[in-house]
């Protein structure tokens, strides 16, 4: 029993300590942001590796998720004779939920893990220490640009995911199952609200992008500088980001759409 309590206490303390370190790191990165502004090129370069290189997986997944939505939505709606509303179903699901959430989960697996591994290996090979000794703060030179790049890339990736998903739904619904094309688009236009739906989706993806990049750079920076430590950190990035995104999604949905 006491052993169990000890274990519980140790785990809780360890968790709080890491949480504290993550916040201190975040604070130090944010304080370094002003010095990053004149060198915004560093962020652009990272947006390429974080954002552009994630495009393939985002586009392919978006098409398939949209096609499945089109198929499932049609099968349900057709029973009630309201398959004309398929466009609304597909668009709302993607804009409000699946776009930001699935894009963030894919982002964690594709870009977040890569960020963690890169920073962890830079630590293990003394590149970060080397920078410090050259009077270059790795937080400002290496971590902050990656954090910002993730923050800016995520909404763009979610938007692309959503747009491609709608096209996938259109292809299945209109192309294969015979829903009227005009109804598909006009109902979508009428029912999807700019502020209520699109803007809330964008806010979600900004939050997810921020959290996913924060977790990724923190895990990399906090990794044990060994190959085992980097591999553990990479796994933690994917697991923690996924949990954080799904948990935050509920909180944000409740705040935005729910009357809980």
């Amino acid at each position, binding site marked *: 029993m006491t052993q169990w309590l000890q274990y519980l206490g140790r785990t809780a303390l360890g968790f709080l300590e890491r949480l504290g370190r993550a916040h201190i790191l975040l604070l130090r990165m944010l304080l370094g942001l002003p010095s990053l502004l004149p060198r915004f090129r560093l962020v652009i370069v990272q947006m390429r590796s974080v954002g552009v290189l994630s495009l393939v997986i985002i586009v392919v997944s978006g098409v398939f998720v949209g096609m499945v939505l089109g198929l499932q939505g049609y099968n349900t709606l057709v029973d009630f004779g309201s398959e004309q509303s398929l466009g609304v179903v597909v668009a709302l699901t993607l804009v409000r939920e699946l776009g930001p959430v699935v894009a963030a989960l894919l982002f964690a697996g594709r870009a977040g893990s890569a960020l963690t591994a890169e920073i962890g290996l830079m630590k293990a090979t003394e590149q970060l220490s080397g920078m410090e000794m*050259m009077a270059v*703060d790795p937080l400002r030179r290496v971590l902050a640009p990656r954090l910002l790049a993730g923050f800016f890339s995520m909404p763009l990736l979610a938007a692309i995911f959503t747009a491609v998903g709608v096209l996938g739904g259109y292809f299945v619904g209109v192309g294969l199952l015979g829903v009227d094309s005009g109804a598909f688009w006009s109902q979508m236009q009428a029912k999807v609200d700019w502020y209520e739906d699109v803007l809330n989706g964008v806010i979600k993806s900004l939050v997810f992008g921020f959290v996913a990049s924060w977790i990724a750079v923190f895990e990399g920076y906090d990794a044990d500088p060994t190959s085992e430590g980097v591999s553990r950190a990479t796994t933690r990035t994917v697991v923690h980001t996924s949990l954080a995104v799904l948990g935050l999604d509920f909180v944000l949905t409740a705040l935005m759409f729910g009357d809980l």
Partner: protein
Amino acid sequence: MTAPNNDEGDPLVRIRGLRFLRGSRVIFGGVDIDIPRGKVTAIMGPSGTGKTTLLRLIGGQLRPAAGSILVDGQDVPSLSRDGLYALRKRVGMLFQSGALLTDLSVFENVAFPLREHTRLPESMIRDLVLMKLQAVGLRGARDLMPSQLSGGMARRVAIARAIALDPMMIMYDEPFTGQDPISMGVVVQLIRLLNDALGLTSIIVSHDVHEVSAIADCIYVLSEGRVVEHGTPEELRHSQSEWVRQFMQGLPDGPVPFHYPACDYGEDLLAGA
């Protein structure tokens, strides 16, 4: 221990009463070291005596539990972050692995400190980088990536990067480990040549007795958190201390026993029967 005396006047680095703990383990228990200006000083000692830790303490990456570390008159542990960064611009450090930035070419690695800390025009950066690379004999390798370099070349690029900002001092962490004889000879030569040609002060952390003896003006031997002895290589070779002689001559047995402490060999074998 009495403070080391040297007749060179004001030393560049003056360490007094340095204490450093890692957990409950004492790494340094009151160490006094003087690094004279313009000289090559070596810090030697068995593995795990905290030689690399000493460099990190001088560079301000670690903070001591007690004692002072004066570098060019400034007390490193009490410096602010800005003060520390200003000091580091004047101190080059060569890490054991070279610590080159793997996503940048050789040229960009050497240009890195210049781009970060100066606002020189591109043409001047190019000239400076080529001069530094020429000094280490790798001007022709400027377009290679760090992954394409041999261990010895990577270390020479790291040396070129360390001298990019024309520092007053360079610290070398195990510069000779894992090198073939030729590249080892090159690095040994370079350290001495650069020190004298650029008017640097060099600190070498190493346990390669022969290489260090060939170029060091002064050697400190550390063991178990203390300075065991210091002097010129010649003085240490004829040291009164049996331990220092064992270390300098690389004898397998002596005051430092060959065997890890264990119970009686015969009894141990019979215990399993």
